[in-house]
């Protein structure tokens, strides 16, 4: 996914002299192997949360952890350049907005907040999908966004403190 050289030699566009961050070959190669699998495992947990142990929080956490793993292996700066601040914020804010949206639609029709059976009566959607929407579109992006976003902020923390994202838990 990242077309840059694996050893984190980001091209000169970042203004600060890039500290030559070279992780030992063993870690980089293992991470290169594991990353895809852990990502898919995260998504598996996410999608099968309804009827097997797991769920959106654990899935989101593992996805976030994968991003962290890549950052450890290939250098924080390069991962940050790849995973723009914009995407992290969109993940977190978008997730919260989706969660609230799914909860508010029933209220628009007079039912209570987060009343999934309402979807069944009104639009014929099985209540299960209401739950899934909350899980997949809501909580998982929030958790993934926050975990990786916060990591980048803390990592940047050692430099002059930049914009601190207070997570939307």
């Amino acid at each position, binding site marked *: 996914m990242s077309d840059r050289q694996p050893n984190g030699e980001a091209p000169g566009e970042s203004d600060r002299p890039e500290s030559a961050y070279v992780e030992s070959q063993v870690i980089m190669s293992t991470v290169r192997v594991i990353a895809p699998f852990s990502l898919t495992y995260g998504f598996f947990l996410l999608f099968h949360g309804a009827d097997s142990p797991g769920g959106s929080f654990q899935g989101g956490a593992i996805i976030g952890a994968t991003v962290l793993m890549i950052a450890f292996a290939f250098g924080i700066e390069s991962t940050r350049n790849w995973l723009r601040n914009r995407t992290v914020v969109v993940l977190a804010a*978008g997730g919260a907005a989706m969660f609230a949206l799914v909860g508010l639609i*029933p209220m628009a029709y007079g039912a*209570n907040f*987060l009343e*999934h059976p309402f979807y069944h009566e009104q639009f014929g959607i099985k209540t299960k999908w209401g739950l899934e929407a909350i899980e997949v579109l809501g909580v998982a992006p929030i958790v993934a966004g926050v975990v990786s976003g916060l990591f980048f902020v803390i990592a940047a923390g050692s430099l002059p403190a930049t914009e601190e994202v*207070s997570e939307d838990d």
Partner: protein
Amino acid sequence: MSELLPALLIVLPIIGATLPLGVGLLRENVGWSIAALVLSVEAGLTAWLATAVYGGEGATRIVHVLGGETFGRRGATENFVVGIELVADAFSGLMVLLVAGVALGVLAFARRGGPRGNAFYSGYLLLTGGLMGLFLTGDLFNLFVFLEIVGLTTYGLVASDRDAESAVAALKYLVIGTTGASLYLLGVGYLFLRTGALNMVDVSRSLAGEPEWIDGALYGDSLVLAAFGFIAVGLMTKAAIYPLHTWQPDAYAAAPDAVTVYISALVSTGGAYAFARVTWTVFTPEFFAVGQNARILELVIVLACLSVVLGSGLAAMQRRLKRLFAYSSVSQFGLIVIGVCVAVHPAGGTQATRLAVYGVVIHLLGHGLIKGGLFATVGALAHGTGARRVREYAGLAKRRPFLSGSMAVLGLAIVGVPPTIGFLGKWYLAVGALNTRLWPVIFVVFASTLLTLLYVARLLEKLYFDGPAEGAAPAAEPEPEGPGAPGGADGAMMTDGAGSLSYGMIALAVSAAVLTVLLGFAGSALTAAAEPIAQAVIEAAPEVSAGG
């Protein structure tokens, strides 16, 4: 339609909190306008909720079950609630009004003086949502979650200005606040273990032994006693009662002025409200009438009395204004906790309970308003003249007449000079305590007037009768100790502080003072609003509406 309001009041600010971040990607400094928009809509909804609650004769209890009927009360489960119930009754109705009002007021302050940046305003909106949830929830565990949301965002906001002094204070607040909240969670766990329910009303009915699978009232049960102990300690940490108050002065002093106004008016009030709600609705006076339970109550009263006396004593010793009023909050919340305990003490009759409940409700509301106004005045004076220490207040009255005037009115209100809401709260607490014939407590409540006078008189004398000749003229140069002073927060404020006194700040301070005096005459309206709560506590029958 009105039973959707409680949920809407909580969700709206939380959605609003995501907007500054989202929109922030496109345009800078858009946070304030989004917050203003969201909070004015919020204020509208609150007003609508208040009319719904207080509209009819006596307060109607608006209940909203999250997740719809599947989680609501149904005959099958002994009429117990499975999900989370949001309840807007007489008590929470008043407090929600306070939150909406203060939230909008502080925005006026933060327009010029407060921290900028989108993250700040998203934290600000999240805190408002958390506070709304704290006051509206009817579920013990949900109360823990909202306590944590409020705590988390408060730590974030305290540390929101760019210097390390506030980070240290925020960390101290985090450690102590989290320990307190976890203890509260442990207490809730004990209650859940024993009664199997989490909804406040259901837990109190189980404690009373209503459902048939519980034989007899559980008031003597050791698990329930331990639960009250943990919950009391946890919530007293959140309300900053004496031995557990150490986080408050640092947090208030190090936070930016706008944040101090907000958290001083609402966050500790939330802790005290939670303590009152749990003691009255869940444990009810019956619990304290059984066996030695009154001794636990007396221990809490002793701590609260200590808090009143030592809070005022420490406040009188402070040199920096924000620390002074932080300790004053410790003392005033001591009074409120005394009121809560007097309301349920077996020694007092129904008259004591009724008056003490009035006192607690009015003093919670009044203190939030007065303390918010005082910190707004301190902040405005700091921005206008750079004065942050008591000695720098010498002769300020001549240069800032309006702010000094509002400081005087609010100071006298906190002392309890009559036509203000401060007097009303203190009057009902005093008469409630008198009815229980607990003489030492009565002495402390009456002595609190003099104790509060200790630091208020010192301030007024400095403001009005201390010629500027001797006091170091603080206006122009920053404090002598240089910019990196422990007053680092002031240092940062100092440079852009002097001269950036906006009309919003003066308007907030003066309107708080005027409102305090006007509410002083609205005693009968406030007691009428608080009457249903008193009735519920007296009958110890929680205001459960028979229906779902």
